[in-house]
């Protein structure tokens, strides 16, 4: 378990990092970037696995099961969507450009 204040420090530093990391993003990448960050919170899958993993009653398992399905959908859907969009920005693969 992470101690309360340690978590608070992690939270604070991560918040600044997130703000700084994308502060110079060009408009053309806004949608892919939103999709990409959408993929990154797919890490919730790890938590959902733990939740279902330590579920004991039927109800807990049912909710945990739903959690894992949703989380896997977030991660996989987020990845494929982002990848498809960014593929188009790949110059080497573009159809010669116009």
């Amino acid at each position, binding site marked *: 378990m*992470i101690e309360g204040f340690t978590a608070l420090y992690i939270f604070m530093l991560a918040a600044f990092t997130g703000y700084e990391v994308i502060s110079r993003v060009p408009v053309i990448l806004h*949608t892919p970037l*939103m999709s990409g960050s959408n993929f990154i919170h797919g890490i*919730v899958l790890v938590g959902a696995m733990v939740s279902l993993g330590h579920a004991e009653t039927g109800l807990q398992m049912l909710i945990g*099961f739903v959690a*894992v399905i949703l989380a896997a959908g977030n991660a996989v*859907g987020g990845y494929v969507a982002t990848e498809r969009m*960014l593929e188009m920005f*790949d110059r080497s693969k573009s159809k010669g450009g116009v």
Partner: protein
Amino acid sequence: MSSFIEIVYFAAAVIFILGLKKMSSPVTARSGIVWAGYAMVAATAVTFFSPAVYSHGFLNLLLIVIAIGIGSYLAYKSAKSVEMTDMPQMIAIYNGMGGGAAGAIAAVELVRFADGHDIGGGTVQLLAVLGALIGAIAFSGSAVAYAKLQGLMNKTLRLPSHQALNIALFAVTLLFGAVLAFSGEVSGFTIFLFFLCALALGIMVTLPIGGADMPVVISLFNALTGLAVAFEGYVLGNAAMIIAGTVVGSSGTLLTQLMAKAMNRPISNILFSSFGSDGGAPEEEDIAGTMKEIEASDAAVTMAYAEKVIIVPGYGMAVAQAQHKLAELVQLLEDRGVTVKFAIHPVAGRMPGHMNVLLAEAGIDYDKIYDLDEINPEFPTADVALVIGANDVVNPVARTNPDSPIYGMPILDADKAKNCIVIKRGKGSGFSGIENHLFYADNTRMLYGDAQKAIGELIAGVKQL
């Protein structure tokens, strides 16, 4: 083993941040998402070896594998097959799933608490409830956003005294939340009511918001989901979730601000008022002039003999899937020596960058694509501004009429070009329901029709010359 898991989680968190950094430049963006993908796979794989996961029996493990299989399969199928134009609502859906997952994690923990387990003390309880509230709102709100963008729910719905109702619902939700967060014993029924209220709140908050504002709302829900994931990360003692969730929360908030700024609408306005859906019809004002139609062949001639053409794509182009035809037209014009540039309004389409993605799909070089600030000074020197299915983002009343709801919104100055050709499906007004004075201007000609068909006619026209 457990320190190995921690190391992988740590590495994943670092790679997520680097990946996000890479994703903010067009050259490295692709490798950014691929890196993040590897990190996600690694983090998921090592989680199977976490004692919390494997030590409670084979059934749990089996269910995890099945659930990952179902979720992955459905998401993979849908994400692979969706058209690029429908991408914004798919992002909303995947994001909503993440929010729902965070909420469900909290639900499992709270049910465990109700069943007499120690889940880690008061702070954990409080953050579980907060994460659940945010996650549930992001879940149901994203579902409404999806329905609206997908066209399943066209109207903006506004109940009588909607705002007061929302506040009351919010208060009730908070009340249940407080009971769950602060009491030593909770019942399953309270948990159920709490989630019911939170889900209803997400729906109620999103219902009155018009489609034009949806991108900002989706971005906001994205940031909220990140925050919910971070809170549940604390509940489960998982640093990777805290870091990744928080980074998304803050970068998502910044992105939301950038979008709202581009629309000249404070976020609070978008959430708590709703323009174009106040019920009030846009005030009838006298507009000088009439809309003047043009034949596709004439429009083709005008463009073919122009020196500089600036193209302003909008949602109409996306709907008609006209980007490939447009690329063909651009090629033809350039072969004739015409300079062609694209002007992209920050909120053109349904999401910032939406147009860029579509144009990239059609193979249009992004060097030809310009932001609002870069391109606006060039309109007076352009012979033709070709507006394709865009409306509010080129409406000059945003500059001239202080009474207009969109007054002050930065627009593309298409009206300043020598000629303006507007491809438009019908005579209706734009998403905001405001009449567009550009369409009535002396130098504007209207080319009615579906964008794909109209551009096809333009291509035929240019080829004949």
